[in-house]
């Protein structure tokens, strides 16, 4: 049995990679994938805790997160697609119209 700390450490590591990906990369698709990575890092912690506490609550949470993530992926990807069609770029720094 793998100790719970190892799995949590892995989850934190994945999460940090996701955060850094969102903050540092300029490509929207990559940022988007990083967000998914963060979600799944969280999922991993949930399932770990569910297992160690012998509770189904965490598992139920995961189902919700997966559903929401799927929906979010649909919306997010279609936004990115339509932006790309008009601006011919995926560089996030170019998408700065939504400001004062």
């Amino acid at each position, binding site marked *: 049995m793998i100790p719970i700390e190892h799995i949590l450490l892995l989850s934190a590591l994945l999460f940090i990679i996701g*955060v850094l990906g*969102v*903050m*540092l990369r*300029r490509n929207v698709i990559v*940022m988007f994938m990083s967000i998914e990575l963060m979600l799944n890092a969280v999922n991993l912690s949930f399932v770990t805790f569910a297992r160690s506490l012998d509770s189904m609550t965490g598992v139920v949470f995961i189902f919700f997160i997966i559903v929401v993530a799927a929906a979010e992926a649909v919306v997010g990807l279609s936004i990115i697609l339509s932006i790309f069609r008009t601006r011919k770029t995926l560089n*996030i*720094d170019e*998408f*700065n*119209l*939504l*400001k*004062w």
Partner: protein
Amino acid sequence: MSQIWLVPAFPLLGFILNGFLGKRFGTRFVTFVGPLAVGMAFAQSLVLFFQMLEAEGNVLNEHLYTWIASGNFEAGINFTVDQLSGLYLLIITGVGFLIHVYSVGYMKGESGYYRFFAYLNLFVFFMLLLVLGDNFLLMFVGWEGVGLCSYLLIGYYFEKDSAAEAAKKAFLFNRVGDFGVLSAVMLIFLSFGSIEFATVNAEASTRLTEGGTLVTAITLLLFLGATGKSAQIPLFVWLPDAMEGPTPVSALIHAATMVTAGLYMVARLSHLFVLAPFTMNVIAVVGATTAILAATIAITQTDIKRVLAYSTVSQLGYMFLAMGVGAFSAGVFHVMTHAFFKALLFLGSGSVILAIHHEQDMRKMGALKNKLPITYVTMLLGTLAISGIPFFSGFFSKDEILWKAFSSPFGSPWLWFVGFLTAGMTAFYMFRMIYLTFHGESRVDSHVVEHVRESPLSITLPLVILAALAVIGGFFGVPHVFHVIPNGIEVYFHDFFAQIPAGHGNVSTEWTLMILSVIFALFAWFMASRLYHSGFEIASGLRSKWEWAYQLSLNKWYVDELYNSLIIQPGRLLSTHLLWGLFDQNVIDRAVNTTGAVARLVGNTIRPLQNGLIQNYALIFTLGTFLILWYMT
């Protein structure tokens, strides 16, 4: 079932039809609906009048619905027909109907024909509401409503500056009076717990001490309202300016009905007013002063309608004199006869004005007697009535007032003397008007004079009917001294008004005073014919001899100028320098501007945060999360 509500409902319906559909359906429709609405109201009024005479206690009541009920305050849409409102109903709808018919001829071809009739109907509606309401609040609705209609009708030719100004002036002067009425109504509610006329009249003597401060304050405030509506000193200056409206308006509103609203209120609350002897004296003195002041102004005016306007003010002063000496029935009687002859005179002047192409200056009239025979004869009858020539209607009512002013416990020989002088002056300026307009040399423009012809039937018919009423209307109230028939008006009003102690004086004094005033009126007639019948040498001689008096009278005692320098100019200075310059600019504007400046400053400061770079947002978001986590652990 008495169906009182039908009376105001007809004119209201007329207003709605004319106002909303009149433009689309054209003049024929308006011509049909406008007069018919008032005619129907008149028919219903007649029915109600006779029902009222036979009813128990001479009162008909009708409860439509409860308008406001809050705590012990209750105001309903309740209508009452009694001796006073019954008579007023007949005057308003009867004279009103004739004037509507007249307007069909007079306003022919005017662009706002439908608008005119809509306003006229609305006016009749509000006036009926005023006299039918059984409580102060409903009366006040009518009171304000006639003020509104007066504004609309005076400003009928609103593209003319003078008309718009006159309308504003009338409205503002009425507002001053309305303040008095509203304050009085509040005081009445505080002291009676009710605003119904019947309760107030019945409980006045038990709830208020005679001559006390409270009752004096209430009645003085009410009288302030009456001076506004009925054009008495100090608020009379709007009425002559109101002649800017079309002539039927002058006849209906500013002679026959609306201006008598103040008198109606005083008469309605006679039981309250007799408890305040001080107010009664104020009313009598103000009435007498207004009567003579307006008469002195009327003597020199050259605009035919202005002569009649000042004559109206003067006659209203008479009526208030009657109220002030406790002769309520005589006052109301004069309201009635005055409605006949003053409506007649105004309509007659309108017929003249129409015939000579909208010229109102009497210096450009003259010798119209043969060209306008019907107008001439009817106006002459009206003049005889207003001058108090024996056996015309004005003679009986005016004489009754003069006698009461002399003999009543509230009266005095001085009041009589002022009234007596005014009566003579009335005869003088009215015959001056007749001579200048119809006699002597023609001073009408030469190219107009060939086209002068008598007005159409819709104009002359009301004149003839009103002339008949002006001649015979007085026999309704023949004074006791004649011993012929009982004094109808006193029989009619028996027990309605507050009783005042019997006056002094005997029959021979009454005869003497009556003969004196008749002689004076005949003398004034004679003087007018000497001065103005043919050639004006004597008149211009007198004028140059008494130049200052002439100027004083011609310029209306400079009352307008006085108000201008005492009230309007200081008000304007106060507004420009203190209210606008200091307070508005420095306090209100500054507060508003500062609010805006603060918002802008804050916005400028934090605006860079929203730079559109998503990764910046993500960074701040992450740092924030860490901050929260760090804080929580």
